[in-house]
């Protein structure tokens, strides 16, 4: 099996995709993205002059594209007591490498609003440039010398989304190696340790440590903070993967580190799922 065979083979695959691209949709969506970036810059400038700006709202076009119509009352990027910006990412990396010096960061991403995704759902997304005032999710990925990968994800959830109780994946005879333990830390946080996870139905095994806490609700909204640390390794069995993954105690210590917790944003633009919205409706 060489490169030519692979190339020829892929070229013969029947993908089911149309023979030509739908350029109308691509250009329309691309123009919306351009307008969204310009609107984001407008919000930033408003913050610099300590004024509340009313950025241009983006309207959904049918069921495609982002919906971003921020309330002018919440458009300010100045949140009392919330010192937050690009430095959080550096601090996150420093926290990881302090415990795992061999980890090499390979990805760094944020989410600052939700976009409509199909008829039912919304999905986290990020503006360009990043709207740090509303960032509610920060993720980094690391390569380990063993070949394993480490994922660190810190999020703020509206409390309606995540139950602090039901955190374990459903047990299944297809995944006999998987275990899940839920406990409370001394300071009242929920600690979830999942071992023997198989990802994407291929020989890739991992473990996840997740720490959840009810946020103090500093802006009058209930929220949940979540820090997840996931290790994944391409291996034939969980036993093999476990030997190359960082140990559970180290990853637990990392997940519990307060430096990984994102402070609560005032709002999460675009978040609306059914009757749920953020901020919470009275």
């Amino acid at each position, binding site marked *: 099996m060489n490169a030519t065979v*692979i190339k020829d083979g892929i070229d013969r695959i029947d993908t089911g*995709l149309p023979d030509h691209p739908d350029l109308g949709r691509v250009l329309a969506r691309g123009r919306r993205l351009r307008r969204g970036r310009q609107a984001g810059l407008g919000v930033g400038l408003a913050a610099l002059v300590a004024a509340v700006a009313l950025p241009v709202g983006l309207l959904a076009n049918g069921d495609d594209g982002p919906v971003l119509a921020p309330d002018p009352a919440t458009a300010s990027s100045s949140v009392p007591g919330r010192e937050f910006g690009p430095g959080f990412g550096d601090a996150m990396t420093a926290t990881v490498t302090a415990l795992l010096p061999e980890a090499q960061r390979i990805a760094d991403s944020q989410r600052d609003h939700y976009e409509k995704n199909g008829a039912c759902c919304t999905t986290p997304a990020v503006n360009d440039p990043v709207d740090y005032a509303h960032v509610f999710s920060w993720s980094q990925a690391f*390569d380990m010398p063993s070949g394993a990968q480490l994922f660190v994800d810190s999020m703020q959830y509206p409390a309606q989304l995540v139950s602090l109780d*039901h955190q374990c994946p459903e047990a299944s005879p297809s995944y006999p190696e998987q275990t899940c333990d839920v406990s409370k830390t001394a300071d009242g946080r929920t600690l979830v340790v999942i071992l023997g996870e198989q990802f994407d139905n*291929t*020989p890739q095994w991992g473990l996840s440590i997740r720490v959840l806490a009810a946020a103090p609700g500093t802006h009058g909204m209930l929220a949940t903070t979540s820090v997840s640390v996931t290790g994944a390794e*391409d291996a034939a069995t969980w036993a093999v993967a476990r030997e190359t993954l960082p140990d559970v105690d180290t990853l637990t210590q990392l997940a519990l580190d307060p430096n990984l917790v994102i402070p609560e944003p005032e709002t999460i633009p675009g978040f609306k799922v059914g009757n749920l919205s953020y901020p919470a409706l009275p």
Partner: protein
Amino acid sequence: MSGRGAADAEFEQLVRASWPTLSRAAYVLTGSTHDAEDLLQGVLARTYARWSRVRRDDPVAYIRRALVNAYVDQWRRRRVISEQPTDQPPERPAPAEADRLARVDDREDLAVRLALLSPRERAMVVLRYYFDRSEAEVAQVLGCSVGTVKSTCSRALGRLRVAEPQEGKR
């Protein structure tokens, strides 16, 4: 034609010319027509949004890199409960390998075997062998070492080769 009109025409021409390769790559990466279409729409829209910058360098290489990066980013994001708002843990992927193999005929053989690779292996196979990038370029795009590219590609090829019927039995 105005400046913007000329730039749009350039973008459209490039996308039409690249579409067959991009669409197959997207399908191989995602394993699904629907997901491939979503992936392509997102990448092309973002490319168009940045077209004034992208067109100055090597736009074909840019789009190919963006496609693989977007797929890898999606895959990594699925590890966190964030894609679908829910208060239940995410659904497990069904152990469908056996079922999938039972339904497949020879024409889809390679597609099925590619789908059985890990996401990272698929991304590397597409970059290295379909887009014909060097090991160093693949390492740079995926943010890993050249050694990781070598070992992962070798493992992926081995898995594809093991699944191949022996020569002479056809």
